[in-house]
């Protein structure tokens, strides 16, 4: 009986799939819109949606196809990511974009690989995303690079002992932390490493440890939920040394946390909205206008029209996917996966071309400062490794 119901339901679900089959190509959006990384994931989706609004169709084999975005929420959790990925695959997406956060990308990667659907990593920076999955490509830089950049920058700020704080079970933070430690020790610095568990809200002791340990810089790559608490606690204890982190901290939550407080917060990121390259400038002005035209979009962006780097990456990811579809000249996932490694694209975040592992060759990071007075990010400098 149950089986019968199941079959009937399966049949019901298949019917609309046939009905919609005329010239639509589906692109899966695999992003967190809830959970620890929900805020950043929403900004990434905005970038993708904006790109979709500019280029809603693609020509395959001389026929025009409408691009339909299928958005699934992976809830920032590796186990939920698997169901979200399965749901995307079952809806027959041709290519997947995402995710914000490396752990969910690594968890979902297997599902995509098994189904033969290529995935384009937007801002997942852990090396294993592409290394351990043949169907994952990526358009941003990697953690070994980012960790080294921030270690160099910490040195430039005059730091000699770093306090590195990451969340247990978060591949992104733990990985980035390790690369930072490696690089910072390589530069002759000392390090204290600590972890906190998911759901921690009491960061008083951690900041104490940094102070009593004689550290003069904190590196805390973690989700924005915790970042806000760490900044708040650091300000409450009157720390004078700078707080550093990776790309996740480039978020309105950080600005709000730092606003009006006597605290120095720096992060590295993929893009700067004051980039004066023509493509970037055009993207920034267009995206701002698009955001401001719709209140709900503005809310999803964190309540202001500051252009997050992940939105720019989302924009590029969508266009890379379109380029791959055009190169494959097919709406089939397998053909797109075959064409993707050869795709090159001049994006707003820089030129994108993939290496053997599937990573974009990117070697520049933007360092930004969360200005507590203006409540905006100030561009500090661009940094690459080997200076």
């Amino acid at each position: 009986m149950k089986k019968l119901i199941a079959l009937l339901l399966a049949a019901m679900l298949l019917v609309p799939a046939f009905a919609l089959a005329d010239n639509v190509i589906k692109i899966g959006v695999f992003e967190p819109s809830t959970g620890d990384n929900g805020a950043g994931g929403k900004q990434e989706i905005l970038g993708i949606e904006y790109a979709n609004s500019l280029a809603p169709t693609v020509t395959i084999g001389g026929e025009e196809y409408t691009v339909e975005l299928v958005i699934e929420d992976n809830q920032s959790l590796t186990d939920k990511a698997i169901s979200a990925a399965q749901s995307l695959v079952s809806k027959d997406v041709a290519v997947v974009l995402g995710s914000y956060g490396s752990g969910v990308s690594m968890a979902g990667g297997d599902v995509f690989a098994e189904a033969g659907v290529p995935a384009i990593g937007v801002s997942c920076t852990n090396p294993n995303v592409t290394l351990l999955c043949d169907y994952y490509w990526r358009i941003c830089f990697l953690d070994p690079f980012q960790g080294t950049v921030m270690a160099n920058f910490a040195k430039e700020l005059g730091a000699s002992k770093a306090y590195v704080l990451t969340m247990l079970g978060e591949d992104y933070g733990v990985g980035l932390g390790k690369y930072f430690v490696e690089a910072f020790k390589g530069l002759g610095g000392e390090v204290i490493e600590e972890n906190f568990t998911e759901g921690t809200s009491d960061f008083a002791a951690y900041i104490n440890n940094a102070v009593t340990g004689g550290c003069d810089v904190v590196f805390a790559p973690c989700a924005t939920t915790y970042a806000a608490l760490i900044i708040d606690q650091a300000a409450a204890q009157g720390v004078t040394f700078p707080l550093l982190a990776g790309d996740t901290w480039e978020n309105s939550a950080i600005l709000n946390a730092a606003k009006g407080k006597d605290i120095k917060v720096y992060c590295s990121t993929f893009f700067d909205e004051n980039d004066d390259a023509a493509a970037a400038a055009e993207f920034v002005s267009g995206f701002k206008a698009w955001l401001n035209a719709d209140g709900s979009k503005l809310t999803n962006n964190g309540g202001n029209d500051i252009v997050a780097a992940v939105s720019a990456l989302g924009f590029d990811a969508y266009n890379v996917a379109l380029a791959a579809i055009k190169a494959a000249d097919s709406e089939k996932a397998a053909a797109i996966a075959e064409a993707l490694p050869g795709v090159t694209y001049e994006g707003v975040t820089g030129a994108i071309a993939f290496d053997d592992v599937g990573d974009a060759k990117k070697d520049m990071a933007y360092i930004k400062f969360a200005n507590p007075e203006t409540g905006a990010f100030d561009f500090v400098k661009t940094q690459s490794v080997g200076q």
Partner: protein
Amino acid sequence: MKKGNLRLIISLAVVALLYVGGCLIEQTAGTKSMIVTVLQKGAVYALIAVSMNLLNGFTGLFSLGQAGFMLVGAYSYAILTIPMAKRAAVYQYYNGGWVQFTIGVIPALLVAGVIAALFAALIGLPVLRLKGDYLAIATLGFAEIIRAIVQWDTIGPLTNGSNLLKTYPTLKNIMPGNTVLFTFIIVGICIGLILLLINSTYGRAFKAIRDDEVAAEAMGINLFHHKQMAFVISSFFAGIGGALLAMYQGSLQANSFKSSMTYEILLIVVIGGMGSVSGSIMASFLFIACSEWWLRFLDAETMLGDFKVPLLAPGFRMVVFAVVIMVVVLFFRKGIMGDRELWELGGRRGAKGGRSVK
């Protein structure tokens, strides 16, 4: 007697039919379809729910440690089966890790169960002396402690710390195209063994303990010995269940084995009926189908023409789901099956406690 035989034959035929059905569905619907996912995950959860039911429903031990034992099983399996070639990449922060050998999938599944059972034996020694809700909270605590230890950086070369484990053999590597069949076979064997146990003298002793500890002791049942046995066996199968879950997921992280996972399994057991194996199995498939598939439309903002359907937004699915569970808990406390089994339906009303099988 004859009637009993007939019922057994019918039951076996139904089981066989389910196997063939599962197989056919996978062949026709293809691996991408959601129904295959539901069949796989539902089967895995069925095993875990039955293992929990053995404790909570049949022995009357209210344990909330299931997620901890699943975690142990899943990690044991993954650590022992990650191919040598991939170890350097997986254990990227720990120089390839300590374990430098791999074993086959089936032995690894067994080892996963055994290690989980060993943990249970150790934990059971102190904890099983506690009663009722103290036992519940103590086992919950142990599950959390296990999770903290697994994530501990110092044993990172063994467990990969808090990072994801990947690249071990998954369901799809083992029997490509027949993943449902593989899961059904393993789960079927395990549940079959549990059923045999429940219908043995040990099983009757378990039920006696559940119904009245003092009376059971007076009848000469060694309380601690039997509780320990139920605890260890339940954990053994929870360990195998955890390993199967790892195989189903394709990647593994200690972080997802939280107490909320135990709660979900407990709710499955309650929905199916405390003390009914077939109830737990049905409830698992229902639970997974609802949460992964049938109720997903509740999470999507939907437009019917110009009319925006109210309430539908991300998260609504889980609210509806939780309300349904509360209704079951409050008004249908016996769940789908109460403490009876599917193959007893239609026959004599199952007397509470003992029932004849042969």
